[in-house]
């Protein structure tokens, strides 16, 4: 029983990662109609915002410790972070410790800027071009972003731990008299995802912004004839999408150490999530994210694997196929969005 509950938690957690990425993607792909293969790269850049901030906080000066030697037998150079010498080891240490949550503040302006630049500089020329061209250009961009990150940070994963205070496990089951321990950071991640998802929904629901952008996607020209500067709104939308992707990345870093190709690992999956959710539907994307996350967790349980060998490898794709065959437009897709 608690194994079951634990898998539901895992599923929600995985699902919140999928949902968050799919949410950003669906803003661009499902709403603006741009097949953005660079979305994974945005997620990755978000993660590297956290890495960078951690690096900045840990910038150090070197002092020579004559008592110790390095691997070549020379005196060892000891590094002390500047923040520790400025604010004292305690507070300075805490700053470094909290670099991931702090990176949220750092990442928002950066990601919005990245989104703006990307849209203004590149994507805006591609709204009218065939999807195939969009794929090629955004894929090219994804490679470039990835390689640039690799050039500066290497290919190896870079550990970016959560603050110590959030690093442990919490017993969620205590309330119901069960033993259900779960990592604190994953709970934080889940709550954070809900927050972001809620925020984006509210923004699009309670303002006309969403309607205008949808209209702009269906028919840019007519919207322009109604006096609306649709370009600007598309840019803003792109900025939001980039920020959502980036924040998903920032918060993900303590769960798995970021590396330069983490975006590509998530890319295909997030497209599947968006399409299963149904093109143009934000709730669909979120729902599909959670659904696939939970199913994936269940499929990795032993009885499932024993029942169908390899089910854990293919579950997502299998479910995607079934859903798309049963429901022509995914879970909640809108008619006519990228159906041809």
């Amino acid at each position, binding site marked *: 029983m608690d194994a079951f509950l634990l898998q539901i938690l895992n599923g929600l957690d995985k699902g919140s990662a999928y949902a968050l990425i799919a949410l950003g993607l669906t803003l661009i792909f499902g709403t603006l109609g741009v097949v953005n293969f660079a979305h994974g790269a945005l997620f990755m850049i978000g993660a590297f915002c956290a890495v960078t901030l951690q690096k900045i906080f840990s910038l150090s000066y070197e002092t020579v410790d004559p008592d110790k030697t390095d691997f070549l037998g020379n005196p060892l150079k000891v590094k002390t972070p500047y923040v520790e010498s400025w604010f004292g080891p305690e507070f300075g240490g805490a700053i470094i410790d909290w670099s991931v949550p702090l990176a949220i503040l750092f990442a928002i302006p950066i990601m919005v800027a990245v989104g703006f630049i990307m849209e203004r500089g590149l994507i805006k020329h591609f709204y009218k071009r065939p999807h195939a061209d969009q794929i090629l250009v955004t894929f090219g961009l994804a490679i470039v972003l990835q390689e640039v990150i690799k050039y500066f940070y290497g290919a190896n994963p870079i550990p970016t731990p959560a603050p110590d205070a959030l690093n442990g496990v919490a017993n969620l089951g205590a309330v119901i008299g069960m033993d259900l321990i779960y990592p604190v950071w994953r709970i934080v991640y889940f709550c954070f995802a809900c927050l972001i998802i809620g925020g984006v929904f509210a923004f699009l629901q309670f303002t006309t912004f969403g309607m*205008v952008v*949808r*209209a702009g996607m*269906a*028919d840019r020209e*007519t*919207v322009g004839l*109604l*006096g*609306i500067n649709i370009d600007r709104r598309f840019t803003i939308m792109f900025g939001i999408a980039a920020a959502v992707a980036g924040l998903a990345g920032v918060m993900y870093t303590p769960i798995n150490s970021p590396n330069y190709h983490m975006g590509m690992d998530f890319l295909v999956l997030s497209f599947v999530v968006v399409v299963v959710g149904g093109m143009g539907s934000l709730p669909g994307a979120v729902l599909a994210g959670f659904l696939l996350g939970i199913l994936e967790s269940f499929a990795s349980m032993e009885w499932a694997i024993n029942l169908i060998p390899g089910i854990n490898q293919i579950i997502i794709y299998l479910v995607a196929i079934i859903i798309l065959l049963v429901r022509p437009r995914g879970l909640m897709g809108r008619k006519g969005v990228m159906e041809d």
Partner: protein
Amino acid sequence: MNVKPDFSKGANQAATAPAFLSIWDVHAYYGESYIVQGINFNVHEGEILALLGRNGAGKTSTLRSIARTGSPMVTRGEIWLDHQPLHLMASHEAAAAGLGLVPEDRRIIAGLTVEENLQLAQIAPPIGWSIERLYELFPRLGERRKQEGVTLSGGEQQMLAIARALARDIKVLLLDEPYEGLAPVIVDEIEKTLIHIKEQGMTTVIVEQNAVRALQLADRAVILDTGGIVFDGTAAEVLENEELRSEYLAI
């Protein structure tokens, strides 16, 4: 910059009042094909101008050039609306300057309801008739307000397109075949509306295949053929001129 161009080169200046909307030596292309081939005409404040010509003459292209849709691409010429240089603007700026276009294929926006289609027109200023007032004009739309715009019948869509233009506070209304697909009774209705808003000072350019009808409504007429102007004068002149009618309008 805000200097009125000299229109002495323009064809047959029928009226002497200062032009409200002036189209001066406009040339436009679809890709490689040269469609609007140097057009000059003026529209005066508060008048209805009929823009006529056979299929493919370039009427739609002319209206789209004025509305700055970007296709066809205007390569030369100037367009002034009430001292504002439209030729330097993007379509949304032209719309803000007071231009309203009812496009020929209606362009109802998919995925939005009737009401949302109208709301969309009232997001950017200047805002014109209230939505309720538009429903009074077209009760049919009021009944269908929650329906998705594109599932309306052809005629209902046409009403919506006109209503959408009126939802904005425009100075010049460009109508591209507004009667198409409308039942005769409705055509009568719309005609009345057009006269009504004309009385309130609206300037209108109407493109219509039903030339007689349009000419009866209009003060002046411009006839296009293969991208150039072949006639510019009063509507009555066209109705009287047998030769003109049979050659360019087949009536």
